[in-house]
């Protein structure tokens, strides 16, 4: 949890970039190791939580912690370079120093999922918030029923964690359904072609004793929720994460609210029932 002995709540921990992987031409994963040895041992988080990542001189950006809590010793973030901070984070090289504040926010209620089938539904760069949970569950595989992963992107090149998709595809204990939007497939594409909600409908995972975890652009979520409903999922069986713009991550700076809900404190993980009760402000 957070380091409460540190009185300046805005002061980041220093981390070293230990590794970097280009997921797509503009999406990069950074593997980060805390420079403070004690913190390296002490830092814990739960799947679904996020952090503020610093490039000193540029500022902070908010991403989920994309690695699994079961993988100790480092954390990973995954981001697309679209602004000042992410452009600067992209310029970092292995061995360089950056900052991390966190972990913040709530998390997936993993223990409530024990004994259930899990259906992960993700689109584009929204796989990282689920990838942390996917590995968390795969590392505790015997505690869960069937695991289905429906993941799509616009094109083959836009799929993130390609090596892990291959690994999941190889495993006998995971059903991976990968898809690209029509026109996004190359000549050797071995997955589906179609939008995520449609492909999810065709894959038709059973709703009984199941939990669906959905992450993607607002438009994907909008069309995915009715498909899940048709498949028989109730709003309490469906979880998603909201990704509103944040600065402090601490419930102070006032920008991530959806109605009276502070995404940074009350979220980012919500059930579909909770999301449907919110005003359209995300």
């Amino acid at each position, binding site marked *: 949890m957070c380091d409460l002995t540190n009185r300046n709540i805005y002061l980041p921990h220093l981390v070293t970039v230990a590794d970097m992987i280009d997921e797509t031409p503009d999406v990069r994963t950074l593997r980060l190791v805390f420079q403070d040895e004690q913190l390296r041992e002490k830092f814990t988080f739960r799947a679904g939580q996020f952090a503020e990542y610093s490039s*000193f001189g540029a500022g902070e950006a908010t991403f989920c912690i994309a690695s699994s809590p079961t993988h100790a010793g480092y954390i990973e973030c995954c981001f697309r370079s679209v602004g000042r901070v992410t452009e600067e984070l992209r310029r970092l090289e292995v061995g360089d120093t950056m900052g991390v504040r966190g972990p913040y926010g709530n998390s997936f209620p993993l223990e409530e999922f024990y004994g259930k089938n899990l259906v992960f539904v993700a689109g584009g760069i929204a796989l990282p918030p689920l990838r942390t949970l996917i590995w968390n569950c795969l590392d505790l595989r015997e505690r869960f029923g069937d695991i289905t992963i429906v993941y799509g992107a616009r094109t083959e090149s836009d799929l993130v964690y390609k090596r892990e998709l291959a690994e999941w595809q190889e495993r006998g204990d995971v059903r991976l359904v990968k898809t690209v939007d029509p026109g996004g497939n190359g000549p050797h594409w071995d997955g589906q072609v179609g939008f995520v909600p449609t492909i999810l409908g065709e894959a038709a995972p059973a709703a009984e004793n199941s939990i669906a975890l959905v992450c993607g652009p607002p438009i994907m979520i909008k069309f995915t929720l009715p498909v899940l409903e048709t498949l028989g999922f109730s709003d309490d069986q469906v979880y998603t994460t909201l990704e*509103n713009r944040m600065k*402090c991550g601490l419930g102070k700076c006032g920008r991530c*609210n959806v109605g009276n809900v502070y995404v940074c404190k009350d979220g980012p993980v919500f059930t579909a029932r909770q999301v449907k009760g919110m*005003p359209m402000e995300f």
Partner: protein
Amino acid sequence: MQTYISHHNFHTLLDTLITGGIRVVAPRLTAGTLLYAPLGESGDMVLDQLPRRSAKEAFFPVCEDILSYEKGGQQVRLTDVEPATFPVTVLVGVRPCDAAAIPVLDAVFSWDYKDEFFLERRRKTTVIGIACTTADDACFCTAVGLSPAETKGSDLFLTPVADGGYLCDICSEKGEALVADGSSLFTELGNVTPLPFASPAVPAFDLKKVKGWLDGHFEDPLWDGTALRCVGCGACAFVCPACHCFDIVDEGTEKSGKRRKSWDACGFWKFTHHASGHNPRDKQPKRYRNRIMHKFKYYDDKFGQTLCTGCGRCVRICPVGIDIAAIVAEIDGMAVE
């Protein structure tokens, strides 16, 4: 408990504090604008007008350093800002609308994670409030349940008396300590005549009723009807005693610089703009709706308080004449009990 201080003794008190090394902040002309700013001597204090910006900046500055960074090779060295170095301060001449907003802000800066930048200044600051004997037509403290004689947020509260002196209400231990330290300057209440309090003209809102309407009207023609003209300048938030949204930005070079916490405003389009290009509040009326909702519903939902003290500054400064008091009055009129 009540006591009295003459005009002359009040100035002596402040000058004694200043020469004793205490930072005294009061309304003072700064580059032609009346702002709450540190005094060099008590004579610089201006008490007959409401400062342009509110007193919140004594606790939550417009822009403040939260750390500094220095890079060397692949390493970064961070230097923390130590709130213990913040000066002991007496904040003087604070209008009831400004003083009442301070404890309202305590809620957001102290719930869950503690913002010591705000809280340490709170601990170290004694607030001397002053009653209003005049009001203009933008003042509406009485409409939000406060008054020109409201002592909320003040440690010591002054009521001007006809002879130029002040009736002093001691409202807290800090106020008591201040009076004890300058005890020779305070005298017993004589036969003094307090000046009559101001009486703002805006009728009282039924804040429960207003919140009840807001609970059910996130979507409503009112928002387009009142805020399409908003130009998104953010001035309303920057003069507000209760607005507390902020940004965190790095200012410096690639090699060294500071990270700062700076006031921000929900009226700015970029405030909620996602990296993807999506913006949940993509139109000005949605941003203005958030302003009203935050003040009269969300803050109440979360902390049981209203985030508006009726100072009227946003009404006076708005370049397109948006009047929050008129909007809330309209909502009050529409609300069904």
